[in-house]
């Protein structure tokens, strides 16, 4: 195998190794099923990784990539399915078991201890020791050797990890994987935090690893990266493998179709007549910017209009909603409701102006799980439920019961603790909070995450009803069909930049994915894309 040491852009390191040349694959997963309450995250995944190949995993948000990674890392145990490791059945019962076999995982959020040194992090959990005393010298020397192998001998093993750059930390993470003598390294979007020259270095290392016979499972949303370093591609969709072992050179269109080709397993809303009233401009956002998160975001939402925001996780969708809501302070730009400009960075100003937010993390950001539904419902409007500071509990109960019945929350008992409800009903409770306030603008961040199919359909109907009542709705969702089905207009984001703002009827799922994944199609579509890729 020839690895061009000087050329960081290895075409396809594993390409000359055909599937049959090396006989059995290093890893073979068949029929993997993993169920969580209410969701079937993996529903028959097939994955086969050959020794020394860079196997790319593609799929939309929610396709099951993260769950699959966790199964590989031993963090989740699959409910069904078979895992063959070097031809023998293996049970990945725990992260330690996976590491013992030789499977190391580099998570997207780096799992390093910032206060410890490079060497200590590399050998965390399998410290070099003799008779119970740590062999710090040996650990340091080995860590230094690993960093040299990774082409970064200048990072001293004594350096505190928290002081390193993102790229440096990633190298430490990789060194840790190598220290375990991994045969298979799983990399979850390793380039997300890297600048382009650092990406080149990463690719060079990946190429060398592959040349040494180490296999890599590589996850990325950037198709051009997959072209550069990938050997073969497996595409996941709704928890299933829809294609495996494709050559990395497969045309973009084909890959996008595979990712979006939807089975009828999920009920997506049928487009309804828009309730938008073009004459009443409710929410106006101009030039909203937060350094490092999003830049120059402008849009307006009319009464009864549903604006969808599509984009990958990390594209700045939630950040925009939270900034509009005043929970984050913008660096520049303004938010106005009914023509009145809001005080920036003030939640109470936004709430007073009639904005409501159903946050992304329902449990940690939205609800008081230990309190009754009624208390959660009135939390944002306590001022209107009191006389001289005393809570009007009878009216609170009556109004809560009314809104719960309207939203068909089951059971519609305002005294029950919110924590005992299902995901969909909890989401309704969050929405109810803003309905009792009589909000003008409702920001919904991933409203259907962790919500089962039946409750989803109800939430979709609810959005339509709210719009029909003249509420301006902004909807963020990772599920493109959901955005396209619910929204009148769609904003497509990529890395904090609005690449398209078009009527939903003019977009298809493939268009959106194209913009989101590559940014190349955006040039024709919106004419606002400056850089197609970085």
């Amino acid at each position, binding site marked *: 195998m020839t690895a061009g040491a000087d050329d960081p852009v290895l075409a396809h390191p594993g390409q000359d190794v055909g599937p049959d040349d090396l006989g059995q694959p290093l890893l073979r997963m068949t029929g993997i099923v993993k169920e969580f*309450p*209410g*969701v*079937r995250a993996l529903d028959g995944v097939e994955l086969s990784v050959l020794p020394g190949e860079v196997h790319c995993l593609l799929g939309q948000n929610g396709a099951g990539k993260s769950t699959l990674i966790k199964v590989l890392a031993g963090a989740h145990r699959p409910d069904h399915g078979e895992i063959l490791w070097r031809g023998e059945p293996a049970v990945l019962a725990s992260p330690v078991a996976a590491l013992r076999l030789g499977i190391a995982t580099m998570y997207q959020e780096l799992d390093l201890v910032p206060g410890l040194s490079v060497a200590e992090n590399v050998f965390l959990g399998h410290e070099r020791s003799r008779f119970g005393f740590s062999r710090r010298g040996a650990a340091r020397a080995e860590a230094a050797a690993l960093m040299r192998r990774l082409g970064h001998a200048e990072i001293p093993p004594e350096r505190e990890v928290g002081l390193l750059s993102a790229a440096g930390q990633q190298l430490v993470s990789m060194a840790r994987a190598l220290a375990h003598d991994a045969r298979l390294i799983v990399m979850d979007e390793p380039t997300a935090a890297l600048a382009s020259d650092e990406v080149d270095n990463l690719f060079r290392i990946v190429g060398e690893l592959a040349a040494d016979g180490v296999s890599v499972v590589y996850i990325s949303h950037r198709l051009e990266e997959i072209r550069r370093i990938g050997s073969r591609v497996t595409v996941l969709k709704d928890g299933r493998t829809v294609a495996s072992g494709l050559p990395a050179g497969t045309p973009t269109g084909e890959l996008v179709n595979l990712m979006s080709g939807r089975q*009828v*397993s999920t*009920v997506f809303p049928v487009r309804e007549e828009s309730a938008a009233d073009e004459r009443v401009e409710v929410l106006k956002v101009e030039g909203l910017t937060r350094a490092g998160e999003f830049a120059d975001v402008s849009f307006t939402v009319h009464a009864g209009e549903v604006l969808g925001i599509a984009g990958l996780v990390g594209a700045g969708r939630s950040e925009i909603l939270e900034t509009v*809501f005043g*929970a984050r302070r913008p660096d520049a730009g303004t938010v106005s409701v009914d023509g009145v400009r809001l005080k920036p960075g003030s*939640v*109470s100003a*936004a*709430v*007073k102006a009639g904005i409501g*937010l159903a*946050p992304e993390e329902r449990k*940690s*950001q*939205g*609800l*008081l*799980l*230990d*309190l*009754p539904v009624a*208390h959660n419902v009135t*939390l*944002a409007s*306590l*001022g209107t*439920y*009191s006389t001289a*500071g*005393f*809570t009007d*509990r009878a009216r609170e109960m009556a109004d809560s019961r009314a809104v719960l019945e309207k939203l068909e929350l*089951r*059971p519609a*008992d305002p*005294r*029950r*603790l919110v*924590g*005992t*409800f*299902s*995901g969909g*009903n*909890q989401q309704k409770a969050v929405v109810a*909070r803003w309905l009792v306030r009589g909000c003008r603008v409702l920001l919904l961040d991933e409203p259907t995450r962790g919500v*089962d*199919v*039946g*409750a989803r*359909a*109800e939430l979709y109907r609810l959005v339509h009803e709210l719009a029909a009542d003249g509420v301006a709705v902004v909807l963020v969702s990772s599920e493109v069909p959901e955005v396209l089905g619910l929204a009148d207009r769609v904003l497509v984001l990529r890395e904090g930049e609005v690449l398209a703002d078009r009527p939903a009827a003019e977009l298809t799922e493939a268009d959106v994915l194209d913009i989101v994944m590559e940014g190349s199609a955006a040039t024709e579509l919106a004419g606002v894309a400056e850089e197609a890729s970085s």
Partner: protein
Amino acid sequence: MTSKSSTPVLATGTDDPTPPPRQRERPRRGGFPVDVRLAGLVGVLLLLCLVGYITRPDGFLTEANISTMLRLAAAIGVVSVGMTFVIISGGIDLSVGSIVALSSVWMTTLATQSYGPVVMVLCGLLVGLACGLVNGLLISYGKIVPFIATLAMYASARGLAERLSGRRTQVVSETGFTTFFRGAFLGIPVLIWMLALVFAVGWVLLNRTNFGRRTLAVGGNAEAARLAGIDVKRHTALVYGIAGLCCGIAAIMVVARTTSGASTNGLFYELDAIAAVVIGGTLLTGGRGSLIGTLVGVLIFTVLNSIFTQNNLDTDIQNIAKGVIIVAAVLLQSTKLRRRIRKT
């Protein structure tokens, strides 16, 4: 069992070929008609009273002893009310004992006494409130964790008290003050009235007002409270202000009982108050709590104390018993909790 709702809710698509996912909603009671744990605590209290009666049938359940017990419980009880609010809001206040000391010293200096009883009372309240607000501002706007901010107050308030008093006990010569606070109303000592009043006001504030509701919200999930438009910082500052004010009231009670102010007043109040709050069923992590539980907690320790003094027993055994009670109460609480919050 009020609601039986395990019937699936799904209006799921007839067009949906996949079987609907399991419905996770379980029928559940809205809450116990009688709080089991509180009943248990009251049981412990009654049991202790019984032990007291058996060991000292002539001395324990007399009017005099009950009155003494309650007067002794008064100051720590009032401090515990403030502590309950702080802990429900998700914080902790280590400085209450020192604030009691500082308030008691400041209100009994010769200068303060010379202005008469009203000024003494106001001085005690204001010093307590001010110290509490300083705690609150440091925590909410200064972003210092409660443990550290109140630890600093714990050290410096007592230091200031020592400096003001020169470590001498300041005897109250103002007779108007002592006659009123050491007196009785309708046959019940004023101190006990004060204790009852503070508990009543605290209970209403916690359970019947928006302020109380917001305290629970801030302690239960500060981020959710913030995203619901609640000014979490201001609220936090106010909660510590309340705790400080309670310390001021407690200082007045201590001064009345001992007819003096000293920098050694209120020693270990923080530990006793936290213990009472915790065995009373308030979660140390915040978000849930009960003032009635706190009251019972305070009374349990008071009765325990009385049993030991009445029987002339050493305090070391008393402290061991106290520790055992704390651990038992918390264990009871956590098993209950596990049953209650079964994560969905």
